[in-house]
């Protein structure tokens, strides 16, 4: 009886593996088929001979490397700024004695409930006046601000637990607050900073709607927006579309393949602390 139950559970879990992974596997097959094979509606079949030409077409037709480069650049700058800025605020909130600390915390807490889409139109008008619409800053700046609240929470939560003795003794030795922050607090806080990096990376790397609203120059598009552009332009070359989707998913999948445990743990930590 017990083993029968166990069998049922394994069956259920295996079915879930199939439903979660088969669509992606199917897409890989799709990307390697000719148009005739795809339209032949034999969805289950494997490609008769892998059509790497689809990948060539996707690579040549869409500015893949350019999109990828833009995504890497925007994400890196955002990550660095988020870490520095939110660590500073988190330190001030969790360790300094000052009256307005609670208010500042509340301001960031409130920001977490605000839907990003509601700011799109005003931001676009603002950026136009500041002449940064259609530049990388029009992505990096809002990406930073929408990633800070959760970062501040994760980091300040951690910093609260750092024993005060460490700072006191450093203070005795004549270290300034800036020095303590740089040489003691930041190095100790590497684990939560990693969590923040993972959360921010996944959100920013996949962000689509701001990119599509604030950017129209081909040379500045990030990967998700680029994928969208490619798909809407090449709507008859099915194999190439599939190939471009795979290429678009590849970077984040590779990162996940290497860091899967870190990423899953980080995202749960982010959810639980948020």
């Amino acid at each position, binding site marked *: 009886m017990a083993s029968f139950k166990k069998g049922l559970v394994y069956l259920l*879990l295996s079915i879930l593996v199939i439903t*979660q992974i088969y669509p992606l596997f199917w897409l890989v097959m799709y990307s390697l088929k000719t148009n005739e094979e795809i339209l032949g509606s034999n969805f289950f079949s494997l490609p008769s001979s892998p059509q790497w030409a689809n990948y060539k077409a996707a690579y040549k037709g869409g500015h893949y490397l350019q999109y990828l480069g833009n995504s890497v650049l925007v994400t890196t700058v955002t990550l660095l700024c988020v870490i520095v800025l939110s660590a500073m605020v988190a330190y001030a909130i969790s360790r300094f004695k000052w009256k307005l600390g609670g208010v500042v915390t509340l301001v960031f807490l409130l920001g977490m409930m605000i839907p990003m889409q*509601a700011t799109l139109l005003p931001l676009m008008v603002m950026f136009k006046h500041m002449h940064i619409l259609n530049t990388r800053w029009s992505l990096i700046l809002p990406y930073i601000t929408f990633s800070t609240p959760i970062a501040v929470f994760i980091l300040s939560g951690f910093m609260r637990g750092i024993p005060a003795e460490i700072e006191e003794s450093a203070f005795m030795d004549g270290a300034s607050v800036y020095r303590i922050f740089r040489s003691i607090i930041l190095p100790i806080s590497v684990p939560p900073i990693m969590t923040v990096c993972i959360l921010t990376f996944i959100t920013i790397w996949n962000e689509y709607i701001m990119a599509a609203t604030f950017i129209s120059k081909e040379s500045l598009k990030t990967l998700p927006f680029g994928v969208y552009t490619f798909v809407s332009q090449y709507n008859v070359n099915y194999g190439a579309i599939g190939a471009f989707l795979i290429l678009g998913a590849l970077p984040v999948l590779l990162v996940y393949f290497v860091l899967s445990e870190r990423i899953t743990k980080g995202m749960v930590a982010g959810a639980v602390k948020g």
Partner: protein
Amino acid sequence: MNVLKVPARTIAVFVLPCLILYIGLVFVPILVAVYDSLLDWDSINKAKFIGLDNFKTMLFHDTNFWPSVRHTLGYAVFSMLEIPVCLFVAALMNRYVRKANTLVSIYFVPVILSVVIIGQLWKTIYNPADMGGMLNGILNSLGLESWTRSWLTEPKIAMYCLYFVSLWQYFGYHLLIQYTGVQNIPTEVYEAAKIDGAEGFKADWYITYPMVIPIFKISIVLAFIGSLQAFDLVWVMTGGGPAHATDTISTHMYTQSFLSLKYGYGSALATSLVFICLVFTVFINFVFKKVEAKYT
């Protein structure tokens, strides 16, 4: 705790850069949106102050507004219904699978992909069979030809097709959260229960489920708030169509602001979206406070 007494200047150095950026790019735009919502303003004519007329239009004359609210709430309800299922699976996994981490990371794969890619993938899956759509292909090969349809262009079912994709994508996320919660229950509790004669599903019912309520709440809140802002997936897959059948509040707002270029009216919708999000966040936290008070 807060130990360091530092001069105000130092505090300013630490806090102001981030705070100014934050207020400037989050709060100022929201206030601007609230102000703009009181204007009759499009891309051509000069803005004119019209008070609350935009909201009147929204509530009483815009035939697409209430359906979009309904779709958004539907999104929220379906996403929340998924969480108990995730919890159930998580409890089973914890009991029957020794090293479930690999399994969990497999379920998690769709979560890390961009909605653009997920949306396009599922658009292809929902395609008619003669365009290579997988779903219709499966139905055909099972002899269920009468069930095949063009999933995303039939107003009555398009919305459910979108709900499903969302549930599919975030299943691994909520499963992982619930699994972490279940794992954190100390094994001694189960051992004690075993002595008292509670095992298997009985133990789940009396121990696992009550003890994960705090984690359960986190998933519910995330799913709920995420659904209220549902945008990307709908935008990528249907653009709110066919004939507004899949419009959510966000996509409706986006269409009005950026395609119809009704800046004033779009801002009114944006303001309502912020308002709805705030109200529901407070409401759901209130509900859970009651629930937690009852069970803990």
